[in-house]
C-alpha cells in the first residue's frame, strides 16, 4: 500500500478526476497521467472454492462490481493466443498461455451476481470465423462451464464482422501513435463496460503481455491480418496480424490508414504503439490479470526460448489498464519505469511508457495504490528467470503444432 494519510474515498475522487484529464491532450506529463488503485491477491488454484472469494474480494476492494456492471452490457476480452493445437509440452493451454476458463467463468458469475444485464465473452481466434465455442472445444474446454456461469452469457468471434452489420469505427482520442482510429467488430462498441482478462506472461515482441497487450487481439484479421482484403475487409480471417506487426501493407482501404507510413517497420516499434492506440480507442474499464498458473519464456509455445509452465499463484485487477500492468510488471520482477534497452524491453519500446505519455495512466508505482497483498508478497521473479535463461542458448526447436 503506497497511499498514506488519506481515505480510500479521497483517493478515488482524485483518481477519477485525473482519469478525465487525459482526454484533454495527447502528451500529459508523468505526474498528470491518471492513477487508479490495483487489488492484488494470492490465489494458488483455479478451484472455484478458492477463486470466487478471492476475485469477489478484489472487486470489492476496487469499489464493488455492482457500480460498474449493474444493468449493463459487459464485454470481456479474453486471451486465446495462437492455435488451440499448440501446447507448452503436455500442459493444458489454460495453465500456460490462455486465460483460464475458471477465471473467465468466475468473472462472469460475479458480474451476473452484481447485476450485469448481458455478458459477452470476446476473442479473435486464430485464423477462423468459426464460433469461439468450437475453438475452445479444441483446446479441451467445455463452453458450458462459461456460458452457464451467469444468465445471458454469450461468446462472439471478433476476428471478423461477426454478428454485426458493419464494423465499428473507434477513434483514438489522443490522435494515436500509429493509427488514428480502428474498424473493429461491433462488440467493442456495443457494450457499456469493457473488461480485459489477461494472462501474466512475457512477450517476444512487446516484452510483457498483460491487460493492455491483450487488447492487441481486438483487431479483426479481415482488416488487419495477413489475408485482409485490399479495398474492403475479407469475409473470413486468415493468418496473423502481420499488417500491424511488420507494417508490410496497410489495412483494408475501408479502414483508417496509418498516420505515417514512413515510420519504422519494426514490430518492436509498432506493436507497443498500436497497443496503446487500441487502449485509447477502446478503454478498459476493468483490467484483470491472472498469473495463477502461466509460463515463462514468452507468450506461447511457438516461441524459441526455454519455455516453462510455472505457478506464481497470483491474480490482480484494477480500473486502469496502465496502473494494473505497472503493478503486474513489478510482480513479475521488472521495473515498470524501464525503458527501451532494459528488461523486459531489451528490443522493444515500453508499452507502459507510451501509454503514460499518451495520458492513459501512470506507471509510477509511487502513485499507484496497491490494495490487498503487497507486491513483494506475491512477487514471482520472471526477471531473474529471464536473465538465467538468456545466459544459455535457446533449446532445439521441435514440431509443436
Amino acid at each position, binding site marked *: 500500500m503506497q497511499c498514506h494519510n488519506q481515505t480510500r474515498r479521497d483517493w478515488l475522487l482524485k483518481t477519477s478526476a485525473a482519469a478525465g484529464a487525459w482526454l484533454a491532450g495527447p502528451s500529459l506529463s508523468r505526474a498528470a497521467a491518471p492513477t487508479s488503485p490495483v487489488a492484488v491477491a494470492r490465489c494458488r488454484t483455479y478451484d472455484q472454492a478458492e477463486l470466487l472469494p478471492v476475485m469477489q474480494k478484489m472487486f470489492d476492494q476496487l469499489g464493488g462490481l455492482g457500480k460498474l456492471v449493474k444493468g449493463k452490457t459487459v464485454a470481456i476480452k479474453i486471451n486465446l493466443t495462437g492455435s488451440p493445437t*499448440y*501446447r507448452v*509440452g503436455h500442459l493444458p493451454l489454460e495453465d500456460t498461455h490462455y486465460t483460464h476458463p475458471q477465471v473467465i467463468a468466475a468473472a462472469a458469475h460475479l458480474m451476473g451476481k452484481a447485476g450485469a444485464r448481458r455478458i459477452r465473452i470476446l476473442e479473435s481466434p486464430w485464423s477462423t470465423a*468459426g464460433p469461439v465455442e468450437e475453438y475452445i472445444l479444441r483446446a479441451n474446454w467445455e463452453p458450458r462451464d462459461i456460458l452457464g456461469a451467469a444468465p445471458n452469457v454469450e461468446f462472439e468471434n471478433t476476428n471478423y464482422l461477426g454478428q454485426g452489420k458493419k464494423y465499428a469505427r473507434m477513434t483514438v482520442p489522443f490522435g494515436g501513435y500509429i493509427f488514428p482510429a480502428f474498424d473493429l467488430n461491433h462488440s467493442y462498441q456495443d457494450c457499456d463496460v469493457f473488461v480485459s482478462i489477461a494472462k501474466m506472461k512475457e512477450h517476444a515482441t512487446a516484452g510483457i503481455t498483460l491487460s493492455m497487450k491483450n487488447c492487441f487481439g481486438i483487431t479483426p484479421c479481415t482488416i488487419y491480418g495477413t489475408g485482409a482484403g485490399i479495398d474492403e475487409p475479407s469475409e473470413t480471417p*486468415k493468418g496473423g496480424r502481420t499488417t500491424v506487426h511488420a507494417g508490410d501493407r496497410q489495412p483494408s482501404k475501408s479502414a483508417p490508414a496509418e498516420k505515417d507510413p514512413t515510420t519504422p517497420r519494426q514490430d518492436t516499434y509498432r506493436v507497443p504503439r498500436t497497443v496503446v492506440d487500441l487502449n485509447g480507442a477502446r478503454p478498459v474499464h476493468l483490467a484483470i490479470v491472472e498469473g495463477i498458473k502461466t509460463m515463462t519464456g514468452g507468450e506461447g509455445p511457438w516461441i524459441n526460448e526455454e519455455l516453462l509452465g510455472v505457478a506464481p499463484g497470483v491474480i490482480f485487477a484494477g480500473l486502469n489498464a496502465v496502473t494494473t500492468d505497472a503493478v503486474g510488471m513489478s510482480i513479475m520482477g521488472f521495473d515498470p519505469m524501464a525503458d527501451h534497452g532494459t528488461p523486459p524491453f531489451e528490443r522493444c519500446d515500453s508499452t507502459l511508457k507510451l501509454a503514460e505519455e499518451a495520458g492513459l495512466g501512470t506507471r509510477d508505482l509511487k502513485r499507484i495504490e496497491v490494495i490487498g497483498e503487497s507486491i513483494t508478497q506475491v512477487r514471482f521473479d520472471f526477471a531473474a528467470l529471464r536473465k538465467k535463461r538468456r545466459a544459455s542458448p535457446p533449446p532445439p526447436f*521441435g*514440431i*509443436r503444432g
Partner: protein
Amino acid sequence: MAAQWTPMRWPSAWKDPAAVNLLKGTAIDCLVLGAGDDLAEVRSRARDAGLHVVDAATPPAGISVIKGVWPGVKGGRAARTEAGPTGVPWVDSNGWTIQLARRQHPEVQVWVDAAPAADAVVTADSYLIAIADSAAYGGRWIVSLDAPLAAAMAAHKPEADKPWNRIKQAAAFFAAHQAWSEYAPFAVVGVVSDFTGANEFFSQEMLNLLARAGQHYRILPKKEPFSTEGLRALLYADAEPLTPALQKQILEFVEAGGMLITDQWPALSQGAVPAPVDTFSVYAMGKGKIAVSKDPPSDPYVWANDSVVLISHRYDLVRFWNGGATGSYYTLSPDRKQAVVHALFYSYRGPDQASVRVAGHYRTARAATVESPQLAGVQVKVEKDAVEIHLPRISQYVALELDV
C-alpha cells in the same frame, strides 16, 4: 479384406537376381515384377526363396492395386511446404482411397501403387510414412524404392542401410499386427453417395478433406443398405435427389437426434435455428437437425470444414496437440475389448511432445511404434469420457492401444 502380403516392386536398377537375398528375413513376402523374360531368373529365385511373385500389370484375383499418392506434407526438394487455404500444410494421404476401395470391394486386398514423387525429399522416415499411411488403413503400400536408394543397395553402399532398415522395421511391424486391419473404424459422420459419375469428384474429395479436417467418417454407398449406428451426422451432396427409401431412412436418423448436412431437402421453411457457419441454414427436426447449404455444393473444402463445425468439435474422436500435420484412424476390435488409434505425423520429422486425446471409456492405454513395441515414457491420463496420452519424442507413426 485386410492385406495379407507385404509387396515390393523389383527396382529396375537391380540387375543381379541375387539381390532377392536382400529380402531374406524381412516381412516383405511378395515381389511385384514386370512380365519380361529378362526377369525370369529373378522370378525363379524369388519363388525358391518362398516369395509370392506378382505381375505388376495383372495382379492376381483378390488383390486390387490402386494408384495412390506419395504421402506426406506436400513440398519440393527445398522442403517448401504448400499450404491450404487456412495456412495448414497440405497433406497427401492414401487413407481415404484405401477406405473407399475396401468399402466398395470388401473381398479384395488393397495395395497402393505410389512411387516416391520425383520432387520429393526422400528420407528413411519418408518410407515409414509411406508404409504406415497405407497399413494403418488396412492396405499395403507396394514398397517402391527411389532410384538413388535402389542403386545404393545394389552397390552395397552403407548409406542405404538406414532407409532400408526403416523399411524392414515398418513392414515387420504391420505384418505382425495384421489383425488390426480387421478392426472396425469409429466414425462421427457418414458420407452417403454413389461415389461415381458426376458425384465422383465431390464425394471423394469430401473423404479426403474430412480426413484433413481431423474428422472420422464412414463411407455409405447409397445403393446398399447401411447402418447409421454410432453416427452423429450424415452428409449427402450428390446431384440426384434422395430416393424415397433413402429419404425415409435419413429422416428417421434425424428425428432420432442425428444431423443431416445436405444441399437439398424438400419444404423446409419452419424450425430455423441459429447456424454456427454462414454457409448453411439449420432447421430443427424431431430431436435432430437438418443443415441445408445456401448454395449448391461447389467447394468440398468449405463443406468438409463447415461440416465439422456444424456437427461440433465436441464430438471429436481424436484431438492432437503439438502434432503438426496429423492423420488418424480409430478402430475397435471385433470382440470390442480393444481399440487402436493409428496416429500419423506427416511432417518431415515426428513430434517432440505430442498429446493425443481419444474419446471413449478406457481403463489403460499403451503406445507402440515401429521401433518400440512398448514405448517408454508415455503418460496416460484417464478422463471421464476420454483418455489423454502424452507421448515422448517419436517418429511419424504411433499405434495407441486402448483397453475398453
